[in-house]
Protein backbone atom coordinates (compact mmCIF):
# COMPACT_ATOMS: atom_id res chain seq x y z
CA UNK A 1 0.00 0.00 0.00
CA UNK A 2 1.18 3.51 -0.71
CA UNK A 3 2.51 5.54 2.21
CA UNK A 4 -0.17 7.73 3.81
CA UNK A 5 1.74 9.41 6.67
CA UNK A 6 4.62 11.87 6.30
CA UNK A 7 6.63 14.09 8.61
CA UNK A 8 5.83 16.97 6.28
CA UNK A 9 3.34 17.47 3.45
CA UNK A 10 4.12 20.37 1.13
CA UNK A 11 1.40 21.86 -1.02
CA UNK A 12 2.69 22.96 -4.42
CA UNK A 13 5.74 21.89 -6.45
CA UNK A 14 6.78 25.47 -7.21
CA UNK A 15 10.17 26.94 -6.42
CA UNK A 16 9.44 27.37 -2.69
CA UNK A 17 7.78 23.99 -2.17
CA UNK A 18 10.57 22.11 -3.93
CA UNK A 19 13.28 24.03 -2.08
CA UNK A 20 11.59 23.29 1.25
CA UNK A 21 11.21 19.64 0.24
CA UNK A 22 14.91 19.33 -0.60
CA UNK A 23 15.97 20.74 2.78
CA UNK A 24 13.64 18.49 4.73
CA UNK A 25 14.28 15.27 2.83
CA UNK A 26 18.03 15.88 2.91
CA UNK A 27 17.82 15.93 6.70
CA UNK A 28 15.91 12.66 6.74
CA UNK A 29 12.34 13.89 7.10
CA UNK A 30 9.74 11.96 5.15
CA UNK A 31 8.36 14.51 2.69
CA UNK A 32 5.54 14.46 0.16
CA UNK A 33 5.09 17.37 -2.27
CA UNK A 34 1.57 17.54 -3.72
CA UNK A 35 1.08 19.33 -7.05
CA UNK A 36 -2.28 19.75 -8.75
CA UNK A 37 -0.85 20.54 -12.18
CA UNK A 38 0.99 18.05 -14.39
CA UNK A 39 4.02 20.37 -14.63
CA UNK A 40 6.13 21.60 -11.71
CA UNK A 41 7.18 25.21 -11.19
CA UNK A 42 3.96 26.95 -10.13
CA UNK A 43 4.13 30.62 -11.07
CA UNK A 44 7.40 29.94 -12.90
CA UNK A 45 6.72 27.12 -15.27
CA UNK A 46 6.75 26.17 -18.92
CA UNK A 47 4.57 24.81 -21.66
CA UNK A 48 4.69 23.84 -25.31
CA UNK A 49 2.29 24.88 -28.07
CA UNK A 50 2.51 23.67 -31.66
CA UNK A 51 6.09 22.58 -31.15
CA UNK A 52 7.27 25.88 -29.59
CA UNK A 53 8.62 26.01 -26.06
CA UNK A 54 7.45 28.80 -23.76
CA UNK A 55 8.28 29.94 -20.22
CA UNK A 56 5.78 31.44 -17.82
CA UNK A 57 7.04 33.78 -15.15
CA UNK A 58 10.79 33.88 -15.50
CA UNK A 59 11.93 36.68 -17.82
CA UNK A 60 15.20 36.74 -15.96
CA UNK A 61 16.43 35.54 -12.66
CA UNK A 62 17.24 38.41 -10.33
CA UNK A 63 20.11 38.26 -7.83
CA UNK A 64 22.60 37.22 -10.52
CA UNK A 65 26.11 37.11 -9.11
CA UNK A 66 29.24 35.43 -10.41
CA UNK A 67 29.62 31.89 -9.01
CA UNK A 68 31.19 31.89 -5.55
CA UNK A 69 30.25 35.50 -4.67
CA UNK A 70 30.28 35.52 -0.89
CA UNK A 71 27.22 36.29 1.16
CA UNK A 72 24.88 36.70 -1.84
CA UNK A 73 21.36 35.18 -1.74
CA UNK A 74 22.13 32.99 -4.77
CA UNK A 75 25.22 31.60 -3.02
CA UNK A 76 23.09 30.86 0.06
CA UNK A 77 20.63 28.92 -2.09
CA UNK A 78 23.34 26.79 -3.66
CA UNK A 79 24.75 26.04 -0.21
CA UNK A 80 21.44 25.28 1.45
CA UNK A 81 20.20 23.04 -1.38
CA UNK A 82 23.60 21.40 -1.96
CA UNK A 83 23.47 22.53 -5.59
CA UNK A 84 26.20 24.10 -7.72
CA UNK A 85 26.08 27.10 -10.07
CA UNK A 86 26.38 24.63 -12.99
CA UNK A 87 23.00 23.17 -11.97
CA UNK A 88 21.31 26.46 -12.93
CA UNK A 89 23.67 27.46 -15.75
CA UNK A 90 22.90 31.17 -15.52
CA UNK A 91 24.16 33.49 -18.24
CA UNK A 92 24.31 37.22 -17.42
CA UNK A 93 22.22 39.85 -19.18
CA UNK A 94 23.65 42.18 -21.84
CA UNK A 95 22.10 45.29 -20.31
CA UNK A 96 18.64 46.54 -19.43
CA UNK A 97 16.91 49.90 -19.54
CA UNK A 98 14.26 51.92 -17.75
CA UNK A 99 12.61 54.10 -20.42
CA UNK A 100 10.36 57.03 -19.57
CA UNK A 101 9.41 59.96 -21.82
CA UNK A 102 12.64 61.84 -22.49
CA UNK A 103 14.80 59.81 -20.11
CA UNK A 104 16.59 56.46 -20.19
CA UNK A 105 18.45 54.77 -17.36
CA UNK A 106 20.70 51.83 -18.22
CA UNK A 107 21.88 49.09 -15.91
CA UNK A 108 23.82 45.85 -16.21
CA UNK A 109 25.25 43.45 -13.64
CA UNK A 110 27.82 46.00 -12.47
CA UNK A 111 26.04 48.28 -10.01
CA UNK A 112 28.58 51.08 -10.45
CA UNK A 113 27.38 51.57 -14.04
CA UNK A 114 23.83 52.17 -12.82
CA UNK A 115 24.95 54.68 -10.18
CA UNK A 116 27.00 56.53 -12.82
CA UNK A 117 24.06 56.52 -15.22
CA UNK A 118 21.72 58.02 -12.61
CA UNK A 119 24.32 60.67 -11.77
CA UNK A 120 24.79 61.54 -15.48
CA UNK A 121 21.06 61.73 -16.16
CA UNK A 122 20.02 63.48 -12.96
CA UNK A 123 23.04 65.57 -11.93
CA UNK A 124 20.98 67.63 -9.49
CA UNK A 125 19.98 64.42 -7.68
CA UNK A 126 23.47 62.93 -7.53
CA UNK A 127 24.14 63.52 -3.81
CA UNK A 128 20.59 62.56 -2.86
CA UNK A 129 20.85 59.32 -4.81
CA UNK A 130 24.19 58.38 -3.30
CA UNK A 131 22.73 58.91 0.18
CA UNK A 132 19.70 56.78 -0.74
CA UNK A 133 21.98 53.98 -1.95
CA UNK A 134 23.93 54.11 1.30
CA UNK A 135 20.67 53.89 3.28
CA UNK A 136 19.55 50.90 1.19
CA UNK A 137 22.85 49.08 1.55
CA UNK A 138 22.84 49.52 5.32
CA UNK A 139 19.20 48.47 5.73
CA UNK A 140 18.54 44.98 7.14
CA UNK A 141 15.74 43.75 4.89
CA UNK A 142 15.83 40.30 6.51
CA UNK A 143 14.62 41.60 9.88
CA UNK A 144 11.25 39.82 10.19
CA UNK A 145 10.18 42.19 12.99
CA UNK A 146 10.68 45.49 11.12
CA UNK A 147 7.45 47.54 11.01
CA UNK A 148 6.16 48.18 7.45
CA UNK A 149 6.99 51.62 6.04
CA UNK A 150 5.90 53.33 2.84
CA UNK A 151 8.66 52.89 0.26
CA UNK A 152 7.53 55.97 -1.64
CA UNK A 153 7.67 58.09 1.51
CA UNK A 154 11.19 56.90 2.38
CA UNK A 155 12.57 57.27 -1.15
CA UNK A 156 10.94 60.71 -1.59
CA UNK A 157 12.63 61.84 1.62
CA UNK A 158 15.95 61.35 -0.23
CA UNK A 159 15.07 62.22 -3.85
CA UNK A 160 13.35 65.46 -4.79
CA UNK A 161 12.76 64.63 -8.48
CA UNK A 162 9.54 62.57 -8.84
CA UNK A 163 10.65 61.37 -12.30
CA UNK A 164 13.74 59.68 -10.86
CA UNK A 165 11.66 58.19 -8.03
CA UNK A 166 9.19 56.74 -10.56
CA UNK A 167 11.98 55.42 -12.77
CA UNK A 168 13.54 53.56 -9.84
CA UNK A 169 10.23 52.16 -8.63
CA UNK A 170 9.06 51.03 -12.08
CA UNK A 171 11.20 47.88 -12.53
CA UNK A 172 11.14 47.02 -8.84
CA UNK A 173 7.35 47.15 -8.68
CA UNK A 174 6.75 45.32 -11.94
CA UNK A 175 9.17 42.54 -10.92
CA UNK A 176 8.01 42.05 -7.38
CA UNK A 177 5.35 44.16 -5.70
CA UNK A 178 1.99 42.84 -4.56
CA UNK A 179 0.78 46.23 -3.34
CA UNK A 180 -0.92 48.80 -5.59
CA UNK A 181 0.64 52.28 -5.94
CA UNK A 182 3.12 52.00 -3.05
CA UNK A 183 5.67 49.37 -2.05
CA UNK A 184 6.71 48.41 1.46
CA UNK A 185 10.21 49.78 2.06
CA UNK A 186 11.74 46.44 3.12
CA UNK A 187 10.38 44.88 -0.07
CA UNK A 188 11.75 47.83 -2.05
CA UNK A 189 15.20 47.20 -0.57
CA UNK A 190 15.03 43.48 -1.41
CA UNK A 191 14.15 44.27 -5.03
CA UNK A 192 16.64 47.15 -5.35
CA UNK A 193 19.48 44.91 -4.21
CA UNK A 194 18.37 41.93 -6.29
CA UNK A 195 17.93 43.86 -9.57
CA UNK A 196 20.27 46.86 -9.43
CA UNK A 197 23.02 45.89 -6.95
CA UNK A 198 23.19 42.26 -8.10
CA UNK A 199 21.64 41.75 -11.52
CA UNK A 200 19.84 39.60 -14.04
CA UNK A 201 20.66 36.24 -15.57
CA UNK A 202 18.91 33.35 -17.27
CA UNK A 203 19.67 29.72 -18.07
CA UNK A 204 19.81 29.12 -21.81
CA UNK A 205 17.12 26.45 -21.38
CA UNK A 206 14.92 28.91 -19.45
CA UNK A 207 13.03 28.00 -16.32
CA UNK A 208 13.07 24.29 -17.26
CA UNK A 209 16.70 24.08 -16.23
CA UNK A 210 15.95 25.38 -12.72
CA UNK A 211 12.91 23.15 -12.28
CA UNK A 212 14.81 20.10 -13.54
CA UNK A 213 17.66 20.77 -11.10
CA UNK A 214 15.26 21.09 -8.16
CA UNK A 215 13.27 17.99 -9.09
CA UNK A 216 16.41 15.92 -9.58
CA UNK A 217 17.79 16.99 -6.21
CA UNK A 218 14.49 16.36 -4.47
CA UNK A 219 14.43 12.83 -5.89
CA UNK A 220 18.08 12.21 -4.95
CA UNK A 221 17.48 13.10 -1.31
CA UNK A 222 14.42 10.87 -1.08
CA UNK A 223 11.49 13.31 -1.29
CA UNK A 224 8.25 12.18 -2.90
CA UNK A 225 6.50 14.35 -5.49
CA UNK A 226 2.97 13.54 -6.55
CA UNK A 227 1.86 15.33 -9.72
CA UNK A 228 -1.78 15.82 -10.80
CA UNK A 229 -2.59 15.51 -7.14
CA UNK A 230 -4.63 18.47 -5.90
CA UNK A 231 -5.60 19.11 -2.30
CA UNK A 232 -9.35 19.35 -1.72
CA UNK A 233 -9.34 20.09 2.01
CA UNK A 234 -7.14 20.49 5.06
CA UNK A 235 -9.06 18.91 7.90
CA UNK A 236 -8.62 20.72 11.21
CA UNK A 237 -9.48 19.58 14.69
CA UNK A 238 -9.13 22.50 17.08
CA UNK A 239 -5.92 24.28 16.16
CA UNK A 240 -4.24 21.38 14.32
CA UNK A 241 -4.55 19.92 10.85
CA UNK A 242 -5.11 16.23 11.39
CA UNK A 243 -5.43 15.09 7.78
CA UNK A 244 -5.33 16.18 4.16
CA UNK A 245 -8.04 15.16 1.67
CA UNK A 246 -6.91 14.97 -1.95
CA UNK A 247 -9.11 15.68 -4.97
CA UNK A 248 -9.34 11.93 -5.47
CA UNK A 249 -10.79 11.48 -1.99
CA UNK A 250 -7.61 9.84 -0.74
CA UNK A 251 -6.56 10.88 2.77
CA UNK A 252 -3.00 11.59 3.93
CA UNK A 253 -1.68 12.62 7.34
CA UNK A 254 1.38 14.63 8.37
CA UNK A 255 2.90 16.21 11.45
CA UNK A 256 3.46 19.51 9.65
CA UNK A 257 1.95 21.09 6.53
CA UNK A 258 3.82 23.71 4.50
CA UNK A 259 1.63 25.40 1.91
CA UNK A 260 2.75 27.47 -1.06
CA UNK A 261 -0.81 27.80 -2.36
CA UNK A 262 -1.15 31.35 -1.01
CA UNK A 263 -2.51 32.43 2.39
CA UNK A 264 -6.13 33.03 1.43
CA UNK A 265 -6.12 29.96 -0.83
CA UNK A 266 -4.73 27.80 2.00
CA UNK A 267 -7.15 29.08 4.65
CA UNK A 268 -10.02 28.35 2.29
CA UNK A 269 -8.84 24.74 2.15
CA UNK A 270 -9.23 24.75 5.95
CA UNK A 271 -12.83 25.87 5.56
CA UNK A 272 -12.32 29.48 6.66
CA UNK A 273 -15.19 31.68 5.55
CA UNK A 274 -14.62 33.38 2.16
CA UNK A 275 -15.90 36.79 3.23
CA UNK A 276 -13.38 37.07 6.11
CA UNK A 277 -10.53 36.37 3.72
CA UNK A 278 -11.58 38.43 0.68
CA UNK A 279 -9.90 41.70 1.75
CA UNK A 280 -6.55 39.91 1.92
CA UNK A 281 -6.60 38.68 -1.69
CA UNK A 282 -3.92 39.87 -4.08
CA UNK A 283 -5.12 41.79 -7.15
CA UNK A 284 -2.15 42.55 -9.37
CA UNK A 285 -1.86 40.48 -12.47
CA UNK A 286 -0.50 40.71 -15.98
CA UNK A 287 -1.05 39.75 -19.59
CA UNK A 288 1.89 38.49 -21.56
CA UNK A 289 2.40 38.19 -25.30
CA UNK A 290 5.15 35.80 -26.31
CA UNK A 291 6.09 35.97 -29.97
CA UNK A 292 8.46 33.60 -31.72
CA UNK A 293 10.58 35.53 -34.24
CA UNK A 294 12.34 34.42 -37.41
CA UNK A 295 15.51 36.13 -36.18
CA UNK A 296 16.88 37.53 -32.92
CA UNK A 297 16.10 41.14 -32.04
CA UNK A 298 19.80 41.99 -32.10
CA UNK A 299 19.76 41.44 -35.89
CA UNK A 300 17.23 44.28 -35.96
CA UNK A 301 19.65 46.41 -33.95
CA UNK A 302 18.15 45.84 -30.49
CA UNK A 303 20.51 44.45 -27.86
CA UNK A 304 18.85 45.34 -24.54
CA UNK A 305 17.85 42.31 -22.50
CA UNK A 306 14.90 43.91 -20.73
CA UNK A 307 13.21 47.28 -21.09
CA UNK A 308 10.91 48.52 -18.33
CA UNK A 309 8.91 51.27 -20.00
CA UNK A 310 6.39 53.91 -19.18
CA UNK A 311 4.82 56.25 -21.72
CA UNK A 312 2.60 58.27 -19.39
CA UNK A 313 3.48 61.38 -17.44
CA UNK A 314 3.52 59.41 -14.22
CA UNK A 315 4.01 55.72 -13.55
CA UNK A 316 0.81 53.98 -12.40
CA UNK A 317 1.18 50.63 -10.70
CA UNK A 318 -2.38 49.54 -10.03
CA UNK A 319 -5.14 47.31 -11.37
CA UNK A 320 -6.09 48.91 -14.69
CA UNK A 321 -9.61 50.15 -15.34
CA UNK A 322 -9.52 48.54 -18.79
CA UNK A 323 -8.55 44.95 -19.49
CA UNK A 324 -4.92 46.01 -19.95
CA UNK A 325 -2.83 49.09 -19.15
CA UNK A 326 -0.37 49.25 -22.04
CA UNK A 327 1.11 52.59 -20.87
CA UNK A 328 3.76 50.71 -18.92
CA UNK A 329 5.23 47.25 -19.01
CA UNK A 330 8.17 45.03 -19.81
CA UNK A 331 9.84 44.14 -23.11
CA UNK A 332 12.00 41.06 -22.63
CA UNK A 333 14.30 39.64 -25.30
CA UNK A 334 15.55 36.27 -24.04
CA UNK A 335 18.08 36.15 -26.93
CA UNK A 336 19.91 39.10 -25.36
CA UNK A 337 21.52 37.21 -22.50
CA UNK A 338 25.18 36.33 -22.98
CA UNK A 339 24.69 32.65 -23.81
CA UNK A 340 27.51 30.49 -25.16
CA UNK A 341 25.31 29.59 -28.15
CA UNK A 342 22.12 31.07 -29.59
CA UNK A 343 18.64 30.05 -28.42
CA UNK A 344 16.90 27.40 -30.52
CA UNK A 345 14.15 29.93 -31.27
CA UNK A 346 14.25 33.70 -31.05
CA UNK A 347 11.49 35.41 -29.16
CA UNK A 348 10.19 38.57 -27.59
CA UNK A 349 7.94 38.83 -24.54
CA UNK A 350 5.68 41.80 -23.79
CA UNK A 351 4.11 42.08 -20.35
CA UNK A 352 1.56 44.63 -19.10
CA UNK A 353 -0.65 45.08 -16.04
CA UNK A 354 -4.11 43.58 -16.52
CA UNK A 355 -7.49 43.41 -14.82
CA UNK A 356 -8.46 39.91 -13.68
CA UNK A 357 -12.16 40.62 -13.15
CA UNK A 358 -12.46 42.08 -16.62
CA UNK A 359 -10.87 39.11 -18.36
CA UNK A 360 -12.70 36.64 -16.17
CA UNK A 361 -16.12 38.10 -16.97
CA UNK A 362 -15.77 37.55 -20.72
CA UNK A 363 -17.41 34.59 -22.41
CA UNK A 364 -15.21 32.55 -24.72
CA UNK A 365 -15.83 34.45 -28.01
CA UNK A 366 -15.43 37.82 -26.26
CA UNK A 367 -12.27 36.57 -24.50
CA UNK A 368 -10.67 35.61 -27.82
CA UNK A 369 -11.82 38.90 -29.40
CA UNK A 370 -10.26 40.86 -26.54
CA UNK A 371 -6.93 39.15 -27.13
CA UNK A 372 -7.10 39.98 -30.85
CA UNK A 373 -7.91 43.56 -29.98
CA UNK A 374 -5.16 44.07 -27.37
CA UNK A 375 -2.34 42.38 -29.27
CA UNK A 376 -1.82 45.22 -31.79
CA UNK A 377 -2.39 47.90 -29.13
CA UNK A 378 0.39 46.54 -26.91
CA UNK A 379 2.70 46.03 -29.91
CA UNK A 380 2.04 49.61 -31.03
CA UNK A 381 2.92 50.94 -27.58
CA UNK A 382 6.28 49.13 -27.35
CA UNK A 383 7.34 50.31 -30.82
CA UNK A 384 8.22 53.60 -29.10
CA UNK A 385 11.21 51.75 -27.70
CA UNK A 386 12.26 48.96 -30.05
CA UNK A 387 12.58 48.34 -33.81
CA UNK A 388 9.45 47.16 -35.60
CA UNK A 389 9.55 43.38 -35.23
CA UNK A 390 5.99 42.61 -36.32
CA UNK A 391 6.76 41.17 -39.75
CA UNK A 392 9.29 38.79 -38.15
CA UNK A 393 6.69 37.14 -35.92
CA UNK A 394 6.06 33.50 -36.84
CA UNK A 395 3.93 32.45 -33.88
CA UNK A 396 2.26 34.21 -30.94
CA UNK A 397 0.79 33.11 -27.66
CA UNK A 398 -1.12 35.46 -25.36
CA UNK A 399 -1.89 34.63 -21.76
CA UNK A 400 -4.07 36.57 -19.34
CA UNK A 401 -4.75 36.72 -15.58
CA UNK A 402 -7.42 34.09 -16.17
CA UNK A 403 -4.81 31.70 -17.61
CA UNK A 404 -2.59 32.32 -14.58
CA UNK A 405 -5.36 31.57 -12.09
CA UNK A 406 -6.33 28.45 -14.01
CA UNK A 407 -2.84 26.94 -13.97
CA UNK A 408 -1.46 28.14 -10.64
CA UNK A 409 -4.57 28.25 -8.47
CA UNK A 410 -3.54 31.73 -7.27
CA UNK A 411 -6.72 33.79 -6.89
CA UNK A 412 -7.16 36.62 -9.41
CA UNK A 413 -4.01 35.40 -11.15
CA UNK A 414 -2.18 37.54 -8.59
CA UNK A 415 1.41 36.73 -9.48
CA UNK A 416 2.88 38.43 -6.42
CA UNK A 417 0.18 37.20 -4.05
CA UNK A 418 -1.40 39.09 -1.20
CA UNK A 419 -0.37 42.69 -0.48
CA UNK A 420 0.20 41.94 3.21
CA UNK A 421 2.99 39.41 3.64
CA UNK A 422 3.19 36.86 6.43
CA UNK A 423 6.89 37.02 7.15
CA UNK A 424 6.93 34.42 9.94
CA UNK A 425 4.87 31.99 7.83
CA UNK A 426 2.63 31.27 10.83
CA UNK A 427 -1.12 30.74 10.47
CA UNK A 428 -3.82 30.45 13.16
CA UNK A 429 -3.27 26.69 12.89
CA UNK A 430 -0.26 25.49 14.84
CA UNK A 431 1.08 22.87 12.40
CA UNK A 432 0.30 24.76 9.18
CA UNK A 433 2.79 27.24 7.72
CA UNK A 434 2.90 29.35 4.57
CA UNK A 435 5.85 29.50 2.21
CA UNK A 436 6.32 31.09 -1.20
CA UNK A 437 4.70 34.20 -2.62
CA UNK A 438 2.61 35.09 0.45
CA UNK A 439 5.39 34.59 2.96
CA UNK A 440 7.26 37.58 1.70
CA UNK A 441 10.20 36.87 -0.57
CA UNK A 442 9.32 37.20 -4.25
CA UNK A 443 10.80 36.07 -7.54
CA UNK A 444 12.51 32.76 -8.17
CA UNK A 445 15.40 33.37 -5.80
CA UNK A 446 13.03 34.80 -3.19
CA UNK A 447 10.68 31.83 -3.49
CA UNK A 448 13.51 29.35 -2.99
CA UNK A 449 14.79 31.33 0.02
CA UNK A 450 11.26 31.35 1.40
CA UNK A 451 10.95 27.56 1.18
CA UNK A 452 14.40 27.11 2.71
CA UNK A 453 13.84 29.50 5.60
CA UNK A 454 10.37 28.20 6.46
CA UNK A 455 11.63 24.59 6.41
CA UNK A 456 14.55 25.59 8.67
CA UNK A 457 12.46 27.68 11.06
CA UNK A 458 9.36 25.55 11.48
CA UNK A 459 10.64 22.01 11.02
CA UNK A 460 14.40 21.54 11.26
CA UNK A 461 15.09 23.90 14.18
CA UNK A 462 12.07 22.63 16.10
CA UNK A 463 12.93 18.99 15.64
CA UNK A 464 16.31 19.91 16.90
CA UNK A 465 15.03 21.73 19.96
CA UNK A 466 13.18 18.62 21.11
Amino acid at each position, binding site marked *: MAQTHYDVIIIGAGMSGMAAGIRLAYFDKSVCVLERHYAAGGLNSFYALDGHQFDVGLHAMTNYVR*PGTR*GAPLTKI*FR*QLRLTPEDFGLAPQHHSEVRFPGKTLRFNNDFRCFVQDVVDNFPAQADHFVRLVKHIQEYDELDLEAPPRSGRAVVSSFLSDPLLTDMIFCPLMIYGNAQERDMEFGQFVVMFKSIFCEGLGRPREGVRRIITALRRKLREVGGTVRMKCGVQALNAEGTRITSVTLDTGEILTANTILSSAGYVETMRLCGTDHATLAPMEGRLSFVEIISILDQPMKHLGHDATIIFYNTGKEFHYETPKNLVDARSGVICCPDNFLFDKPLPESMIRLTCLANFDGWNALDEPAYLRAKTEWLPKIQQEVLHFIPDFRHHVVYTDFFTPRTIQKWTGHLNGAVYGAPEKLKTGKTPIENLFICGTDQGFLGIVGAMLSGISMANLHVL*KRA*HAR
Partner: protein
Amino acid sequence: MTNDQIKHAVLQIIAVIAPDEDLSHVKSDVALRDQLELDSMDFLDIVMELRKRYGVEVPEGDYGQLASLDSCVIYLAPKLKDK
Protein backbone atom coordinates in the same frame (compact mmCIF):
# COMPACT_ATOMS: atom_id res chain seq x y z
CA MET B 1 37.45 9.31 16.82
CA THR B 2 40.81 10.91 17.45
CA ASN B 3 41.13 14.68 17.68
CA ASP B 4 42.52 14.84 14.15
CA GLN B 5 39.65 12.73 12.85
CA ILE B 6 37.16 15.09 14.49
CA LYS B 7 38.81 18.11 12.85
CA HIS B 8 38.77 16.30 9.55
CA ALA B 9 35.09 15.37 10.00
CA VAL B 10 34.13 19.00 10.72
CA LEU B 11 36.12 20.24 7.74
CA GLN B 12 34.46 17.65 5.52
CA ILE B 13 31.07 18.92 6.65
CA ILE B 14 32.07 22.52 5.92
CA ALA B 15 33.31 21.43 2.48
CA VAL B 16 29.82 20.05 1.72
CA ILE B 17 28.01 23.11 3.07
CA ALA B 18 30.32 25.71 1.55
CA PRO B 19 32.05 24.14 -1.47
CA ASP B 20 33.04 27.64 -2.60
CA GLU B 21 35.33 28.19 0.42
CA ASP B 22 39.04 27.40 0.40
CA LEU B 23 39.63 25.19 3.46
CA SER B 24 43.32 24.47 2.93
CA HIS B 25 44.53 27.18 5.34
CA VAL B 26 41.95 27.02 8.13
CA LYS B 27 43.65 27.61 11.49
CA SER B 28 42.47 25.41 14.36
CA ASP B 29 42.66 28.06 17.03
CA VAL B 30 40.91 30.88 15.13
CA ALA B 31 37.09 31.23 14.96
CA LEU B 32 35.71 29.68 11.77
CA ARG B 33 33.60 32.78 11.21
CA ASP B 34 36.72 34.95 11.13
CA GLN B 35 38.32 32.82 8.43
CA LEU B 36 35.35 31.73 6.33
CA GLU B 37 32.12 33.29 5.12
CA LEU B 38 29.72 31.29 7.29
CA ASP B 39 26.36 32.70 8.43
CA SER B 40 23.82 31.41 10.95
CA MET B 41 22.18 29.24 8.25
CA ASP B 42 25.55 27.55 7.68
CA PHE B 43 26.10 26.95 11.40
CA LEU B 44 22.66 25.34 11.64
CA ASP B 45 23.78 23.08 8.81
CA ILE B 46 27.00 22.06 10.60
CA VAL B 47 24.86 20.98 13.54
CA MET B 48 22.33 19.22 11.29
CA GLU B 49 25.10 17.38 9.41
CA LEU B 50 26.67 16.22 12.71
CA ARG B 51 23.35 14.68 13.60
CA LYS B 52 22.75 13.21 10.15
CA ARG B 53 26.23 11.68 9.87
CA TYR B 54 27.16 10.78 13.44
CA GLY B 55 23.93 10.93 15.43
CA VAL B 56 25.37 13.72 17.58
CA GLU B 57 22.92 16.18 19.14
CA VAL B 58 24.08 19.75 19.69
CA PRO B 59 21.47 21.80 21.58
CA GLU B 60 21.05 25.40 20.40
CA GLY B 61 22.60 26.74 23.62
CA ASP B 62 25.83 24.91 22.75
CA TYR B 63 26.31 26.28 19.19
CA GLY B 64 28.97 28.64 20.55
CA GLN B 65 31.12 25.60 21.42
CA LEU B 66 31.62 25.00 17.69
CA ALA B 67 33.31 28.35 17.09
CA SER B 68 36.74 27.05 16.09
CA LEU B 69 38.16 23.64 15.10
CA ASP B 70 39.90 23.40 18.48
CA SER B 71 36.71 24.13 20.40
CA CYS B 72 34.85 21.63 18.17
CA VAL B 73 37.35 18.97 19.24
CA ILE B 74 36.94 19.77 22.95
CA TYR B 75 33.15 19.77 22.69
CA LEU B 76 32.66 16.83 20.32
CA ALA B 77 35.37 14.45 21.60
CA PRO B 78 33.24 12.93 24.38
CA LYS B 79 30.25 12.65 22.03
CA LEU B 80 32.27 11.01 19.25
CA LYS B 81 34.62 8.83 21.28
CA ASP B 82 32.85 5.60 20.23
CA LYS B 83 32.21 6.58 16.61
